[in-house]
């Protein structure tokens, strides 16, 4: 759709090769389009946890993110372009967050601020914590830190602007909203015995059937991981024992040596702690 329209914009004074015509118009349009979009990113006024305090600190006069066009924070998702997920996302909260995201008009962006929003953060192990908002929403920029300082957030925002600068009308894979029609809303999770992502219903059903047959529900064993250094050591040990049994170290001795080394390390640590006092 976009391509046919754009051909009309081309300057007839300069002949452009047939195969390049669409691209050239898009590039200059891209620039204007991206510039205007990235210079008026309005974040959703919406704070979750500790990071929200730093976000407000960034909005305040000392750091002032309106200098970058993050001008006003809008209370309504209908008026905002950017969702700054500022803090720990809990299972109870992800339901409204997904709803809010669905209500935002496209093009829309998500910035995960802080460790919690990116990947669960220090609370990752908690039973009510979603380990990263990207489990439910597409995240454009991650800002690490716990909490990120205002300047770190500003850097994240500039990073987002760079991302927008790189987007093109011609590349529909990169930016879904240039396609025809509105995109599908993200399915809203359901609070059951635990949170249920509707996109995973098939998988859950499958696992539930297996659980009825007394298989563990949802657990997955990680493949055993071997330290490459240890592999090397094993082979060399074998070689050594072939060379001569006296030089080789039998497992019992190795274990004893290891224990002693550990004890030495502990002792050294204790001494160091004393010395540092």
């Amino acid at each position, binding site marked *: 759709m976009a391509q046919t329209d754009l051909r009309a914009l081309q300057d007839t004074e300069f002949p452009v090769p047939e195969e390049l015509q669409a691209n050239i118009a898009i590039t200059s349009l891209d620039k204007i389009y991206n510039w205007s979009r990235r210079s008026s990113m309005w974040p959703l006024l919406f704070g979750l946890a500790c990071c929200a305090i730093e976000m407000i600190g960034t909005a305040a*006069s000392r750091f002032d993110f309106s200098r970058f066009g993050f001008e006003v924070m809008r209370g309504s998702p209908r008026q905002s372009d950017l969702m700054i997920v500022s803090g720990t996302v809990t299972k109870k909260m992800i339901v409204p967050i997904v709803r809010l995201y669905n209500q935002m008009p496209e093009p829309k962006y998500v910035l995960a601020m802080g460790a919690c929003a990116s990947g669960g953060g*220090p609370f990752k192990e908690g039973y*009510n914590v979603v380990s990263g908002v990207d489990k439910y929403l597409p995240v454009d920029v991650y800002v690490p830190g716990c909490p990120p300082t205002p300047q770190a957030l500003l850097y994240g925002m500039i990073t987002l602007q760079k991302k927008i600068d790189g987007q093109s009308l011609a590349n529909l894979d990169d930016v879904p909203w240039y396609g025809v029609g509105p995109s599908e809303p993200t399915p809203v999770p359901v*609070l059951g015995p*635990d949170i249920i992502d509707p996109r995973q219903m098939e998988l859950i059903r499958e696992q539930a059937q297996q659980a009825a047959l007394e298989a563990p529900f*949802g657990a997955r064993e990680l493949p055993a991981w071997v330290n490459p250094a240890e592999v090397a050591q094993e082979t060399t040990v074998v070689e050594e024992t072939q060379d001569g049994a006296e030089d080789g170290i039998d497992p019992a001795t190795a274990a004893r040596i290891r224990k002693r080394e550990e004890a030495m390390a502990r002792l050294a640590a204790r001494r160091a702690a004393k010395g540092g006092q």
Partner: protein
Amino acid sequence: MMDVVADKTQLDISASIELLRERWPDAISHDNRDGFSGIIVDPAQLDDVALAIRDELGFDYLSSVTGVDYLGIADHMEVVYHACRTSGGPALVFKAQTGRDDPRVPSLVSVWPGADFQEREAYDLYGIHFDGHPDLRRILLWDGFDGHPLRKDWQEAYFEEEHKPFDSRWPGGQVYRAEEKNVFGKNVRYPDDLDLGRLNDVSESDLYQGLGLGVDVQALDSDGLRTDRLVVNLGPHHPSTHGVFRMVVTLDGETIASLDPVMGYLHRNHEKIGERNSFLHNMPFTDRLDYISSMSNNLGYALAVEQLLSQGARYSPPTYRAECLRVLMVELTRIVNHLWSLGFLLNDLGAFFTPMLYANNEREKILDFFEATSGSRLMCNYMRFAGVYRDIPERIRSVANLVNDKVRDYNTMDYLTEMVNERLPRFLDEYDTLLTRNEILRERTVGVGVLLAEDAIALSTCGPLLRASGVPYDVRRADPYSIYPELDFNIPAGKNGDIYDRFLVRFQEMRESVRILKQILPRLEQSQGEAVVTKIGHTPRVPVGEAYGRVENPKGELGYYVVSEGDPKGPQNPWRYHVRAPSFINLTALGPMCVGHKVADVVTILGSIDIVLGETDR
């Protein structure tokens, strides 16, 4: 006769306990476990004993209610109550024990209405049924959640080990993300008998049923005008709820008929994680409770663990300089917090951002000092057991590291002196002129959200909310800690208990904090060079016992109930780690305060309570 009653309310803790024991020799026994104190009350007699504790002995203020699961130690559940007198003094601890299979304890809401939310929390997280509780629903998790997570035999999806440090981290540290171990790639754990047939969003039905919407519409209105009650949801995403707090408000026209707070949108499982952590591990987690005043959160926790440690052999209390530094930080935090809360109270009133920006300017100056001293603006993690992290630096100096970095270099003591003696008083005067006599502010706040003194005490409110109602109860005076006894300061209290009084009390508290800081600075000069921390290592041996450390946080009484299992060879983790969060308990008063006011006043009343969700939901 009157004299006897008056005497009883003056009895100290042990005499009070003796008196109770005489009255109920069978139902009350001393808690004789090592390191524990207080009494154990037979649940059957709990109501009567509680009434006697409140009315005869004068413990009118129920500070904290919490459950403990002693699985594997004694195989029972315990409900622990801390009751205090608003006139001051330490807490009377009493406990009720009940079996783990069907834990039941009579509710004390009729005695202390402030137990309402705390009992609901214990029900939610432990499954303890409080017989006679008017509205026993889950409070932090949603209806239909599988299990009661704080029970010791309950494990979450990302469960790795019972105690930290985890063995998988060292020496064979195979890095992995916890979600890789889950087929769903998420932090989920479904029960084996998951019924996929009924997975509608049923989790809210109980909430709406509790609102009394089933009222007969015709009967509501006798004049013949057809009116209906309207339910309005405020939050969890609402700019004025100070986070992810939700209120379900039933409106009659524009007047509030009932208000039901819904919490748990930031329930980060602080206590479950805290029981897995070692004692030291918990310190940075306390930063994230009330994330505006991390320094005072640290102090409360340090006090609680120091209470336990002081029963052991090798422990020396913090030095004088460490205490001075603690008070310095805590009082600066109080100013930071009140600046923030006043700014946002004005924001809620419609004075969008100007008062906030002015307040934030001063706040940033204090944060710069925090950053230079502790390393972080918000998450200070500054207190340690028996001291503080490090002494204040000689100079607040930054070093250029990144491109375009601009450096600052100030002498720390000059910076502090200038701030405390000139800048902050000047700013407070200016802020006073800006706001206090503003007619719009007064119109919106005077007489709104009134909380009477008796109600404030009964509802266990604390901090500026309680003091604005005319109860000069401040833990710094009532149960002094650190070097507060030797400092000269007043406890500001209001008269009317409305929003305006809370505003004034906060303002006055900032001035008092400045006054305290002025006394601290010379003490810092004098104690220069003293050590600030007694090193006790990263895993101190914590003796068995319980401790309740409480401090006057900017938002109110913050208490930590810590139980140590005390096995010298085992992992050094708290068996129970409970936070008595002022924001959480202050919300008990929100509903009663709002009823009868207009819907526009709700956000103001909420703003005047000054909640922080990290602490409310934990």
